[in-house]
């Protein structure tokens, strides 16, 4: 079972995700902003991070650059769960996957709670994600 850090600015969606993941046996912390997420990860090391790219004041790309600049967090798998239309993040996809260690990208409007639980089960099992390409060995 995984320790999940969920960065989701919409509190109603955050509630639904948190409850579904808790029912599936995971420990979940939900935060609304990028700085909050940094602080939460600092307080308790997550096994996996789920992240919306559209955030208040900052965006997910910024968060990931900051997150990945700390060696102790470079191995943590990140799944993007975003409302941004797939066509719009096409250009970002390569950077997300190859430079920022994103293991999967979900389209939030159609990603069910079952899909979210499946993603955590697949990528969040300990260090299932492994080191991402840009991390220190």
């Amino acid at each position, binding site marked *: 079972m995984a320790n999940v850090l969920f960065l989701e600015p919409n509190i109603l969606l955050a509630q*639904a995700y948190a409850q*579904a993941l808790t*029912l599936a046996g995971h420990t979940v912390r939900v935060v609304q902003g990028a700085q909050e997420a940094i602080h939460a990860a600092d307080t308790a090391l997550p096994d996996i991070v789920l992240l919306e790219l559209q955030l208040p004041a900052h965006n997910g790309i910024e968060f990931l650059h900051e997150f990945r600049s700390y060696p102790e967090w470079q191995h943590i798998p990140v799944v993007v769960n975003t*409302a941004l*239309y797939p066509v719009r993040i096409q250009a970002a996809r390569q950077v997300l996957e190859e430079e920022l260690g994103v293991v999967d990208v979900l389209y*939030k409007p159609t990603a069910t*709670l*079952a899909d979210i639980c499946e993603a955590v089960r697949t990528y969040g099992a300990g260090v299932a994600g492994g080191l991402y390409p840009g991390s220190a060995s």
Partner: protein
Amino acid sequence: MQQPAAGLGTEWSDLLFAVAEQLKVPLTVIARQAELGEMTRQEDAGHLQIVRTQADAAMQLVDSYLLGLELLRSQTALELEPVSISSTLVDTAHALTRFAKQYNVDIAVDVGGRYEPVMAHARGLRAALLSLGFGLVEAQATPTSGRRTPRLTLAVHRTPHGIIAGVYGTNDSLHADVWQRALRLCGRAAQPFTGLSVGSGAGLFVADTILKSMESSLKAGTWHRDRGLAAAFQSSQQLRFV
């Protein structure tokens, strides 16, 4: 009928884009909260499934509209690729099943035969067929659909004009003139289709718009005894060089 004020077109189009983007948020919340309810409140699971399915269908319409707009606005040439029309129709049928069941409409696929891939925008094609399917499901369940068991069939066949993929229903009201008239009334009449309960027909018009960006379009057609809308595609020449 009042005509829209001159110069209103682009502003309203931009505004509608913003509205559509915003609608995704409450629709997602409704769908996910309903899904959570299905998981935690078994006694309400049936009702909640209806809520979730309707929210998903609405989301699909909004998404398809946004995709259509993106494709139309795109300055670069559309990225066409070889797409298996049969697989796309089967996937679409699966995606429609739960929604159709709520209206007691059966979903069938008829993709027998070998068809080479067609050149299309993969995501656009899927969105168009889904929009069309969602749009036509309700029409099959109305009293005008006759005595036959309400059914929607997703089918493909070959003609001299190319590979034809369409969605056809047991409701036999969708003749060519009905479709042409509806196209003229799009956005100006609350019910542009006569004899067909598809509301404003938004799903059908969105599908048509997406297909037009791929140099195709919807035309009224028949499949055995069923009537519906279909589009013609050219097969991919690429594989000939393999």
